[in-house]
């Protein structure tokens, strides 16, 4: 069994494409915690996850799990990782029973008891095919497979995208239950409201660069959102981290310590508001 205080360590990850570049992404995942991985579409979240899993070859950088590096020990490390992606649907015409039988054979630590428990918990039937499952059920099936082989680390790529609010809430409850079992989760999404309900930590990726790696509460509490009637006063501009129009005027994101300097109403922004304002400022 691979064990280490830090279940996943990413160092200096770089990947260059003609129109996009992932630049020097480094972070450690806290064990037994849910880490939210946020950023707008195209920020590089999926590229980062795919680099971790060797779907793409990073130009530079290292991914380590429990003291082993992905470059040298990918097969060994993957015994301990589960990957769940909303965009994937494998072998749509095969029965879940068949896919499970094949998957089981690759994992010595596979637990039939855990598999039956999760299939029952998620309301999945083995005689169905992936084509007969809703998107939410496909994600639950992928989770059931990952959890049955004893994955300690779950990499979730937009697992709640395209799901209705009730299915999203169900999944978030599942993630919270898994956290209580000691699983480490990296939850990539652009639906930040989901993370506010479950994440302990936030990684914020902007244009291929990691611009924040903080506790969720600290991250949200470090900003203030000023509300302005009409245009923002000129003296705010040097402190503005991002500005957005509203139907009554505009809102300006500033660092919390700067908010008291202005005689404007302010409050703590949501993750969504932080992301939108920062992205707006960043846009050329």
């Amino acid at each position, binding site marked *: 069994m691979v064990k280490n205080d830090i279940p996943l360590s990413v160092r200096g990850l770089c990947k260059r494409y003609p129109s996009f570049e992932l630049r020097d992404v480094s972070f450690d995942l806290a064990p037994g915690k849910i880490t939210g991985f946020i950023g707008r579409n195209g920020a590089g979240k999926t590229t980062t996850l*795919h680099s971790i*899993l*060797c*779907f*793409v*070859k990073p130009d530079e950088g290292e991914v380590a799990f429990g003291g082993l590096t992905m470059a040298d020990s*990918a*097969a*060994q*490390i*993957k*015994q301990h*990782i*589960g*990957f769940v*992606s909303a965009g*994937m*649907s*494998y*072998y*749509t015409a*095969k029965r879940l029973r*068949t*896919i499970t*039988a*094949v*998957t089981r*054979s*690759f*994992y010595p630590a596979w637990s039939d008891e855990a598999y039956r428990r999760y299939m029952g918990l998620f309301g999945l039937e083995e005689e169905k095919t992936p084509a007969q499952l809703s998107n939410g059920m496909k994600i639950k099936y992928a989770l059931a497979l990952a959890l049955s082989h004893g994955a300690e680390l779950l990499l979730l790529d937009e697992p709640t995208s395209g799901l209705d609010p009730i299915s999203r809430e169900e999944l978030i409850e599942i993630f919270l239950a898994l956290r209580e079992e000691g699983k480490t989760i990296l939850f990539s999404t652009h639906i930040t409201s989901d993370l506010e309900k479950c994440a302990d930590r936030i990684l914020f990726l902007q244009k291929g660069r990691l611009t924040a790696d903080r506790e969720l509460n600290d991250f949200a509490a470090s900003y203030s959102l000023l509300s302005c009637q009409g245009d923002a006063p000129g003296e705010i501009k040097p402190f503005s981290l991002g500005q957005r129009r509203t139907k009554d005027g505009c809102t300006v994101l500033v660092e919390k310590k700067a908010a008291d300097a202005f005689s404007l109403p302010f409050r703590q922004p949501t993750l969504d508001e932080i992301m939108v304002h920062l992205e707006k400022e960043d846009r050329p």
Partner: protein
Amino acid sequence: MKLLKKEFRLCVHPAAWMMLALGALILTPNYPYAVSFFYMTLGIFFICLSSRENHDAAYTLTLPVSRRDMVRGRVLLSCCLEGLDLAVCAAFIVLKNLIGGGKNAAGMDANLALLGEGLLLFSLFHIIFFPAWYKDIAKVGKPFVAASAAVFLYIVLALVSTYALPFVRDCLDTPDPAHLPEKLLFLLLSAGCYGLCTALSIRWSARNFEALDLQ
């Protein structure tokens, strides 16, 4: 073996099994029998095509296996299907000789050397198709067209050789059991070529696949 089991249970397209039945073309009078081996390469093409549609590579990459093993699994699956195809053809060769099929005017007779001709065809397919496909597994058509062009050229040359090359005309293209030692030697050399080309194909394919970014 786990990957081969996975290939058989999740990846084999029904068309590949249907192609096996086309070994029965050997019963057709005056037909270029090597074409029946081409149909199996078409079955392999369907497997690769459906693998793409079923996100097979993305699924397999999440399993604790290396990319090199993934390539080995797929090529080994092809070898198993080709072996079955050769066995089916061998059965029809025996049947044709039992019912007295006679001389084939369109290439090699239904005999032991025909199996060697099949092995050479599969060798050519392996060495062209798999390394090209593993450069970009999203594009299955172009590698198959390139491999098929080479295979059809080979079929034409093999057919012409039954008229133009004295050794082929007088020794190999004869009803069994005439010239059995020469045919056996040709079969063994073809098997050697098949093994070599398959090994090279795995090596080159793995090198290409390891450099490939999957999106």
